[in-house]
């Protein structure tokens, strides 16, 4: 292990390290801590110029109450959920199948198809902007969650397929052969042998996609408008427009918007990091 394990160092170094950790963490997360503090400050603190001191009193209930009951935030949150969850399911489903095909079967265009997905994953998505917007308009899906979901599924399929294909490639091929020798039909191999083994990858990927999509802003702006279909990232900007200079409310809003992926991250932390590892460092 590098660097040298700290427990092998002298007592004072250990103590130094232990106390440096929280300090470093606070510095690192300073901007977030500030927002958290902002969000529980009463409005008066800002007009009094009390930006960076502790809140004069706890104003969190009021601020969050405003966010939840006097704005469209709940609506935006719901939209985000209705966009994110189907996308995660769809992208994972498509990429499981594609990954299976690319990871298990040998055929001529295999590598090229795979590269197509990988390359698609890296294109600057702005190049898709105008045509995709037109396509969505033509399909009558402009400003619908469905339109956003369909596009996200398609675009995420690149990354997910890369991820799944690598994962499946890492499975022992002998398992597939064993099943073939036993006369198991190919689709049954997928369902009964490969899918159960992909559970960790599926979990990891689902979490990853969840955060990616939840945090998407660009496509939300390009493909949707208005409170009935925009997700919370776009919502927060109109929220901001509405409450400009009301930092306590904006902070509360920002925290509300950031919370679901953060919660997801903490709940599924193991999968999430495993996911990054599986998908990336492999």
């Amino acid at each position, binding site marked *: 292990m590098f660097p040298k394990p700290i427990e092998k160092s002298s007592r004072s170094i250990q103590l130094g390290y232990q106390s440096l950790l929280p300090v470093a963490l606070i510095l690192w997360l300073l901007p977030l801590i500030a927002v958290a503090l902002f969000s529980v400050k009463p409005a008066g603190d800002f007009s009094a110029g009390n930006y960076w001191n502790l809140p004069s009193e706890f104003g969190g209930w009021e601020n969050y109450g405003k966010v939840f009951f006097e704005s469209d935030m709940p609506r935006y949150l719901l939209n985000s959920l209705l966009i994110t969850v189907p996308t995660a399911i769809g992208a994972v489903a498509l990429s499981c199948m594609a990954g299976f095909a690319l990871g298990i079967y040998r055929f001529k265009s295999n590598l090229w198809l795979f590269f197509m997905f990988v390359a698609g994953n890296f294109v600057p998505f702005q190049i898709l902007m105008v045509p995709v917007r037109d396509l969505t308009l033509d399909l009558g899906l402009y400003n619908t969650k469905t339109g956003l979901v369909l596009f996200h599924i398609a675009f995420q399929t690149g990354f997910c397929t890369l991820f799944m294909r690598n994962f499946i490639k890492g499975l022992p091929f002998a398992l597939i052969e064993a099943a073939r020798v036993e006369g198991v039909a190919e689709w049954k191999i997928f369902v009964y042998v490969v899918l159960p083994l992909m559970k960790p990858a599926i979990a990891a990927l689902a979490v990853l996609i969840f955060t990616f999509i939840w945090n998407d802003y660009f496509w939300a702006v390009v493909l949707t408008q208005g409170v009935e279909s925009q997700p919370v990232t776009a919502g927060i900007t109109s929220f901001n427009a509405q409450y*400009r*200079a009301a930092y306590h409310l904006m902070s509360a809003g920002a925290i509300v918007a950031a919370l679901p992926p953060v919660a997801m991250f903490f709940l599924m932390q193991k999968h999430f990091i495993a996911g990054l590892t599986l998908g990336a460092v492999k």
Partner: protein
Amino acid sequence: QQLTGDLKIFSDMSNPAPRATMEGMAARFGEMHPDLNIELTIIDREAYKTQIRNFLTANTPDVANWYAANRMRPYVDAGLFEDVSDVWEGQLSEELASTKGAMTLDGKQWGVPYTYYQWGVYYRKDIYEELGLSEPATFEEELANCQKIVDSGRTCYTLGSKFLWTAGGWFDYLNMRTNGYDFHSALLAGEKKWDSEEVRATFANWRTLLDMGAFIENHTSYSYQESLPFLAQGDSAAILIGNFAVAPLRDAGLTDDQLDFYQFPAITEGVAMAEDAPTDTFHIPSGASNKEAAKAFLKFVVSAENQTMINAGDALGQLPVNSKSSVDDDKFLKEGFAMLSSNSPGGVAQFFDRDAPAEMAKVGMEGLQEFMVRPDNLDAILARLDKAAERIYK
């Protein structure tokens, strides 16, 4: 007659006060037509500007907000706005005479206005009094005032130019006062060169202000709302803005004793005073499905009674477009109304980004902002604007 079906309205009145006004207006119209199902969608004002293209072509509402003059031209040209000349027929034309021109393109009317508002200088009366200043009538007085304010450790004007258009307001006024309304509108219509004596004179005046430190320093970082606290807290003495700023300033704690208004002072002698008074409008997209109800709604919007109500100080706090309606008993509205009706012989402009084509407005306002930060770049900026103009007005 009784209206039925759905009426879909898209609105950009997203700030708290306008939003409530819009919702109230929709509700009242709904009460008049119980069988009509009104769906009101309110979209963030900045976002609305980019989204209108999309919803005019797909997912079309029956009524939509927009702006008058050049700003509506692309949609008129593309056939996306319905010709509503029939709504204007009859007495309405008289009642709305003052804004009819702004709604007319190619001899037809393409929507109705619902509000307009004056621009001008909103200032801290208490500070002026403290320093012994009075409302300036000429640029010289203005500069003298400003010097005293600067000497007192304040800035003369607060400004938030992050979203550019506030700089457009400054140019409008400086140019209209320096060169007059006709030159200004010709310039924005692409008929005059930016690199001209006249425009340079305007910028020279502006530069005088810049050089004396009249503006707050970091205006590029702020939206106009974010720039208001400087005024509210007394760090700046005034702001050049539209009347919509009154409500947030009052919210920020300024009383009518502290806040006052004056018309932007004259610069070049003999140039008639002209004002910016942007008109906000309602239109019917040509793809609307319930045009009958939409037209009824438009008529309702401009009716004298409704105009009085929605432009009241506790609502939009702006000027009604219907000559029959009454201006609210609000000192700013009264002052503005008086100014526009009797003291702007030069004409009424819509606003920089409504009078110039969108693309030109963008490039132009960027140049204006750049000028405010780097006045020495003026030559390059003017050259750039002329080059852009060449392409855009082609």
